[in-house]
């Protein structure tokens, strides 16, 4: 079927990188991404936070220009937002000063469509999406689910060919998200939506398998398409269907695959060893919590990722963050959809507070080059102090400003727990004052 469907949109060899202050090309976000969207399909882009999937979606929509490569929609290059492509946002992005109807009419009125015509079409869209009776309500008065319905209505009312969705359900609670997903899928399968294709971004594996006909798995740093998985299950899909579970497991495995070794000199990726790796914000409580859960029965040191995610009611994205941090610290290993504690991890889980801190501190010094670096600088200086700024600046050679700050903050928090050094927030200075 896919072979005969006309293709709506082509992304060819798209790359994107940050611009440094000096105007040179900085750290790459997306690297040589190509994809096609055909009529009649729902395509999912699945990846970890920070893999550039939202950036890719914005390039497709024309909101951002790629550094290299191009996007072609119905034969025309997309270099600014194009007619026929509409977007739904994670944060809903509703205007708080407009009521439901006015929000839905927004895109129509902006295009100069007559007031009466806009009214009529907006009411139809409101009706379709199940917002009847809420026309005059303001976004503040609505629940999250209702707000996102307004977001959908606003996008659908302009009759787009392609609907882009940026994690549209991730700001909603589990039940609301499921209702909204089902409603949308029903409308889609019944052919009642005025759209020809959907491209959605998500970090939720089950959501992708539930909704998409084709899933593109993105790897991080820089973002690349690492796998394309076709989902041939019939709608409505059943999460408990063995085939469904099998697919979820396969994708988990793909996403935990060790990244292939990078060319020498480039150590910007997370799993690497270098000083310049970008670290996520993970609290030491989460790290300890996951190790304890893993060490205890029924897992006894080893667990299937989807199972433990379910058990701990963790979002996949959070689980990956914690798991990879443990992997970095050599407390655990992740491979082909499993996570396993190392002997050090088992020792940590069984230890007392002080023993844990000591062990954690030692691992920080051995495996987190930035922590070792800060400690060494502090040891060498006669004052035993150093400003945070200097490390931020060093990190910025490898990553964006925001990432540098986050990375330093994470290392600071972990090091405080491991009692490696102290940090004074108001003066932003590291020191050796109170540890040990």
């Amino acid at each position, binding site marked *: 079927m896919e072979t005969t469907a006309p293709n709506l949109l082509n992304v060819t060899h798209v790359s994107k990188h940050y611009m440094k202050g000096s105007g040179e090309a900085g750290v790459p976000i997306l690297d040589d991404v190509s994809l096609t969207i055909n009529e009649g399909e729902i395509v999912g882009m699945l990846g970890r936070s920070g893999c550039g999937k939202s950036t890719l979606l914005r390039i497709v929509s024309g909101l951002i220009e790629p550094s290299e490569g191009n996007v072609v929609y119905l034969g025309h290059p997309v270099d600014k937002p194009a007619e026929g492509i509409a977007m739904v946002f994670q944060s809903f992005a509703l205007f708080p000063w407009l009521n439901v109807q006015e929000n839905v009419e927004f895109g129509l009125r902006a295009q100069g469509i007559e007031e009466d015509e806009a009214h009529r079409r907006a009411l139809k869209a409101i009706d379709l999406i199940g917002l009847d009776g809420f026309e005059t309500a303001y976004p503040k008065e609505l629940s999250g689910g209702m707000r996102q319905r307004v977001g959908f209505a606003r996008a659908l009312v302009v009759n787009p060919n392609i609907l882009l969705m940026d994690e549209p359900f991730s700001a909603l609670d589990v039940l609301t998200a499921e209702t909204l997903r089902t409603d949308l899928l029903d409308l889609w399968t019944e052919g009642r939506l005025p759209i020809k294709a959907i491209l959605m971004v998500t970090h939720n594996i089950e959501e992708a398998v539930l909704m998409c006909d084709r899933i593109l798995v993105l790897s991080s740093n820089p973002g690349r398409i690492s796998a394309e998985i076709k989902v041939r299950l019939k709608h409505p899909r059943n999460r408990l269907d063995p085939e469904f579970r099998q697919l979820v497991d396969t994708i988990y495995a793909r996403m935990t695959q060790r990244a292939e070794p990078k060319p020498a000199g480039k150590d910007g990726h997370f799993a690497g060893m270098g000083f310049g790796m970008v670290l996520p914000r993970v609290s030491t409580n989460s790290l300890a919590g996951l190790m304890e859960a893993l060490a205890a029965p029924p897992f006894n040191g080893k667990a299937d990722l989807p199972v433990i995610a379910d058990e701990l009611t963790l979002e996949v994205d959070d689980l990956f963050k914690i798991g990879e941090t443990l992997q970095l610290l050599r407390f655990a290993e992740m491979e082909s959809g499993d996570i396993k504690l190392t002997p050090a991890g088992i020792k940590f889980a069984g230890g007392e507070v002080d023993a844990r801190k000591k062990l954690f501190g030692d691992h920080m010094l051995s495996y987190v080059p930035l922590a070792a670096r800060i400690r060494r600088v502090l040891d060498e200086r006669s004052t035993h102090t150093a400003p945070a700024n200097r490390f931020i600046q060093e990190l910025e050679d490898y990553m964006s400003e925001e990432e540098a700050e986050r990375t330093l903050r994470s290392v600071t928090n972990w090091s405080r727990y491991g009692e490696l050094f102290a940090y004074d*927030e108001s003066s932003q200075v590291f020191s050796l004052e109170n540890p040990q």
Partner: protein
Amino acid sequence: MAHKWIDLTSFNRRSIPNVWDFIAFALIVALFVAITHASHGMTAHLPDKNDSTVNLDYANLPYYASRSTIRMFLALIASFIFTFTYATLAAKSKRAELVLIPMLDVLQSVPVLGFLSFTVTFFLGLFPGSTLGAECAAIFAVFTSQAWNMAFSFYQSLVTVPRDLDEVCNGFRLNGWQRFWCLEAPFSVPGLLWNTMMSMSGGWFFVVASEAISVGDTTINLPGIGSYLAMAINQKRVDAVIAAVITMLFVILAYDQLLFRPIVAWSSKFRVELSAGQESEDPWVLRLFQRTRFLRQIVIFVGDQFTKFAYLRLPFPKFEGLSGKADPRLSRAFDYAWFGLIGLITLWALWEIERFVTSELSWSDLFYAVGLTFITMLRVVVLMALATLFWVPISVWVGLRPTIARLVQPLAQFLAAFPVNVIFPIAVILILRLHLNPDIWLSTLIIFGTQWYIVFNVIAGAAAFPNDLKEVAATYGAKGWQWWRDVMLPGIFPYFVTGALTASGGSWNAAIVAEYVKWGDDKVAAHGIGSYIAQATEAGDYPKIVLGVAVMSVFVILFNRLFWRPLFGYAERRLRVN
């Protein structure tokens, strides 16, 4: 209590003065100097009118009050036009921003009241032989008390437009015009209107001060409350002063009820945080407009027309400043040209100032002015400290009792809007009768009108203090000094800084009118830069006015940058509860 945490946005930024501040300052002083030169030849055009235009008959008071009010609104319109153009330009063009924002910062610190005589001569020159020039000057004075603040708020909104809403507008291909009215203007409403209303409160002070203007030997009295008051002072009519005070009370009450409260409550609709949370006020005027069928129809009609206007597809230039599409080499060349131009203008400004200073003033003048400014600064600091010690405990006590706070809070806001210069004569009479030392007792007038900003901000802070923290303090038995130091003072500190900042700015301005006051032919003067400027104005000594205003501005800028901003930054970083 509609406002919880109103950020004085301009104070969140860098604090150490840099080269751009210097350039901005030079430009502004040079502008003053240039106006001085220009206005030397203009004084001949003063209208041939004497004091008889204002009559102390009580029956005239409503008419005078309406004239003053109209001036306020004209100034407000001018301020909005300025805000929408100046701030938009600063926010959309990186190059313009570099100059415009420091300029705004400096202008905010210039006590423009001291400069009234120049603007009067300048405007009189524009409309020779008519009072229109004087009207413009009065309106301009009010404008200068409002515009900077509003422009800052709008600029801040423009650069913090939420990214997702921005993307929605881009995605639907809005043009510059639609974007401005559909996104940027509505988004700025809560901050802008709050700042506007606060500025307007301050504006009453300026309208009173600027209606009766003396330049050298000539006095122009524009019909208004301020002139009525000036006349009453001239003729030593206590009853007329009291009548003016009472009229002003009514005017401010009407302003407070008909405008301030409804508008601030209405603007909460534009807040972007999607939580319904905050308890909101329900002023009767707003209710009237929302519930009365006839008024409601009008509101809906106006709203519809505005929507049509906002969605107009006018080919409005969309600034492409940040898109980076331009050839980088061309862009760099443009940068050099731009910086070169600024450099040249700055050089001209410095040369102009130098020429002016060397020809008209001596170093001793400068030292004298600096010395006087220190005295005024001492006054402001001491009085702020006294007001703080006196009002913070009272305000906290009030703020912790919601029923009392509901009564006191509007009163404090009302008092902050009341133009305190209306009651100056009463203070002068007391000082004269009791033979008090003016250096001490005139000082109190500086803080008289501005202390209310501390009061109502601290009340708001104490009222917003989280209940769970109060309960923690109670369960662990925190009492006395420990309760203040660990619980309440950190909790209200951000609010206090906000209020104190406004109060301090207002006090510097008040110094110009408060350090030199008259009652008939009796004059009471304190030592200070305020009375220096006021006396120079009376004598028509332009060089001294420029010197006084410039020195005072430098002090205010440094005071803000080195004292208030670090405090504000600290409060923002460490003590913000929510």
